[in-house]
């Protein structure tokens, strides 16, 4: 009798507490194969407003020693707090690829995403990707860039927007060119945007925008240039405009 009561108690306890469990996390799929290398197929270095999903998913490929695709390997995605993945882990498909949708965190800046899988010996293989979240200022800067700057500074042409880059005798610096632009201080960039190329003994093909853009807009533009720099600009953002 007592034993029965005890079993009943245990069952009742389990039934009652099962309701308290938070979301039942889906079990990780079990790997059926192991690769030895991770390669990025697409999705690195994207830009999205803070907290928003990246425009394209991240796609990585699992390869073996010979460089052929490995299907069925378990791939996991990790990022700083606030970054969400859908799915967080998955098995590579028949072409060895894994696709995940990523939403970045709530703060503007760079997010390092770690993709990992294990090789045959159980050692972790990692791939690091960088994504950039844009805050208010960078989004405004991006709008200004698209309107005033990108036609010359972006060498890529699209059907809607033909680039003027190739037509210029002195080539402008693409804004992602961190190697050059990171060396220029905010004051230098402000000067060159406000007064044109000759302000820093550079090409007069760069016209002055000081009478077209406001100071706030120029600051926003610089913060966008800093956000897209590759390699990254050492300190994030531009100073807060004091009231």
């Amino acid at each position, binding site marked *: 009798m007592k034993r029965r009561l005890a079993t009943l108690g245990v069952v009742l306890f389990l039934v009652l507490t099962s309701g308290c469990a938070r979301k039942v996390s889906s079990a990780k799929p079990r790997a059926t194969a192991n690769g030895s290398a991770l390669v990025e197929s697409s999705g690195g270095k994207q830009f999205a*407003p*803070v*907290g*928003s*999903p990246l*425009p394209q998913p991240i796609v990585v490929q699992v390869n073996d020693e010979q460089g052929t695709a490995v299907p069925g390997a378990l791939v996991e995605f990790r990022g700083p707090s606030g970054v969400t993945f859908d799915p967080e882990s998955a098995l590579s498909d028949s072409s060895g690829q894994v696709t995940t949708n990523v*939403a970045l965190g*709530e*703060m*503007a*800046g760079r997010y390092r995403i770690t993709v990992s899988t294990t090789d045959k010996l159980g050692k972790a293989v990692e791939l690091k990707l960088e994504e950039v979240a844009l*805050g*208010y*200022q960078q*989004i*405004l800067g991006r*709008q*200004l860039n698209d*309107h*005033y700057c990108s*036609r*010359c500074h972006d060498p890529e042409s699209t059907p809607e*927007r*033909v*680039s*003027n880059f190739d*037509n*210029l005798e002195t080539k402008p610096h693409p804004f992602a060119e961190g190697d050059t632009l990171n060396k220029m201080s905010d004051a230098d960039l402000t000067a060159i945007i406000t007064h044109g190329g000759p302000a820093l003994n550079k*090409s*007069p*093909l*760069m*016209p*002055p*925008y*000081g*009478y*077209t853009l406001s100071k*706030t807009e120029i*600051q*926003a533009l610089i*913060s966008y240039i800093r956000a897209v720099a590759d390699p990254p600009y050492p*300190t*994030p*953002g*531009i*100073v*807060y*405009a*004091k*009231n």
Partner: protein
Amino acid sequence: MPLTDKFASQWRRLFGDSVHAFGVVGIVFLVSLAIAPAKNYFTEWRHYQKQYLKMIRGRGDAVTLQRHFQGGIQQIWLPDLGVVDRCTSCHAGLKEASLVDVSTQPLRKHPAIPHSLDQFGCVMCHRGQGAATTLEEAHRSTLAWEQPMLPARYIESSCGQCHHQQLQGTPQLNLGRKLLARYGCVNCHSVKQPDGTVMKATDDAPSLSHVADKTTREWIYTWLRDPRAYAATATMPDFKLKDEDARDISAFLISNSSRLPSATETVPPQKAAADAAAGASLYGESFCASCHAVENAAGNLVGGDVGPELTRVGNKLRPEWLRAWLRNPRSYDPGTQMPHYRFNDLQVSLLTGFLQAKFDPDFPSNVHLESPTPEQIANGRRLVMDYGCASCHRISGIKKPENFAPELTRIGSKPINQLVFLPGMEHTLPEYITNKIRQPRAFGQGLKMPQYGFTPVQIDAIATALLAQNERAFTLPPYLILAAAPASNYTPAGNAGKLMKDLACFSCHTINGRGGDMAPDLSWEGSSVQRKWLQEFLKNPNTLRPALIRRMPKFNLTDSEINELTDYMMTVYQNPVIDLDSVPVFGNSLVQVEQGKQLFYGKYACQSCHIVDVKTDKGYIGPTLTLVGSRMTAPWIYQWVKNPQALRPGSNEPNRNMSDEDARALTAFLMNQKGSPAKEARKK
């Protein structure tokens, strides 16, 4: 019993004599007194303030930061806005410009925004409970406070509480508002704004009163079953109708349709109509693709989105209707955005043949429908009323329903306990709104909201626009509400006005605030161009910018129509700043021309964007200036180079703050670019 004995002996030991008793009671009393200060000492905000002080101690600017720091609970109190925010108690460094390198919360500085924290506080934008002093209560919803902080991806909705005009820094909000209008959401859901306006739809759904002239019952049936099977870009959502419902609605629409003789005027089909190549080149020459998209072999859509997609148009239209439409679209739909091309009979037949060939044999148009019974037609009518078809379409005999769907004016502060959530959904308002748009029919049986094909980005944008529609926005003081620019209803007068309506100029060009954004604003066209050039251009349009696809169609206008238009534009579309009689003032001496050339290539380096000499210049952004002297007027060029944004706000040509002398020289140089006379002669 030993237990009671033990207890009794302990009792005696503690309270045996009065001194002991006094001591014990005193200690208990002291401890209980200490609880309150201890609780205060261990509060969360004190913990974060200590953390902040520890962090700034090691910094170079410690002294300044220390001086700015104030301990204790901090508060931003704005009685006008109903804001009591204590967020700065924990977020102590929010206003410190020098903390750019700090990335841990709650110690970061606030990123740059156009508003001051002291003027607007925190919850105006971020929501949450401003008066709370613990992380949990301030950030998340509690039993007593339903409104948690707004996820950052919807933060632009907060800008929309005051700003009802287009803002440059809020692309997501702008897109959301545009989609609400473009996809007819506001036809069923009324959305009022704090600036006193009501959101208006811009989708312009076709009238169904004469639909039988245009298409077949079979096509309507297939379209109703799944609009996106016909065109991926369909504006109409999927109502997920049952087969018999689609059958009955199509029966009703056909039987309800009245014949419009002018819309099926018989243009005799021409023999050459089968010439596919000639049809394709006419389609290209007429710039149909500026407005209509067609899916190419690779599955990409090529073309504009002003008119409907034409990939499978051969499956849809009756040839006699299409011929009448191409001859004059206004005979079927007086308000259409399609221009009235002056096509001749042969051209009409060629284009009809070309469009009829856009036929997809896989599109399920070969459905066979029995002729309808009166019950089916009556049932179709009932369904049309039930689904609110007349909210978007004009249907003769059926009135546009009022308040067909729930009003969304204050959807952004809808209490969570009034919402239905699906299993697995987070219980927050943004989550509800996005899911409701993504899968409206999953929320219960018998719901009518149709399924749209929005992308995740579009859904986030719509949610952003809807979250801006909240209680707070309606309680703000009026001086904070920035109203949208009132929609312009400018209509040009007279015969020229009629002609401009017939040619649907406003579908692409904006004049005095009304019109599309595909082509240049024409509000000052009379001041900027020369009459002769305008006449030539209307007769035979060509592109001015090498990097742009030409979109201006040739309308086959008669000389008298061209004169009518030119006269009107030259007289009416004048900028008050530009005095066309002031031409002689500029002079045109060779010295000035030479000086202007120096300025053009040297000081102002205009060749980075413009071409004057095709041999040397390569600039690809601005219009080509090789013939500018015979196209534009001197006073316009003079004012333009001095300040382009004054004439066209938002122009991407930078303002160079040019001196009058430089502007005069440049004008002289540019007015001298009339092309070589020999070349011109050869052309003629």
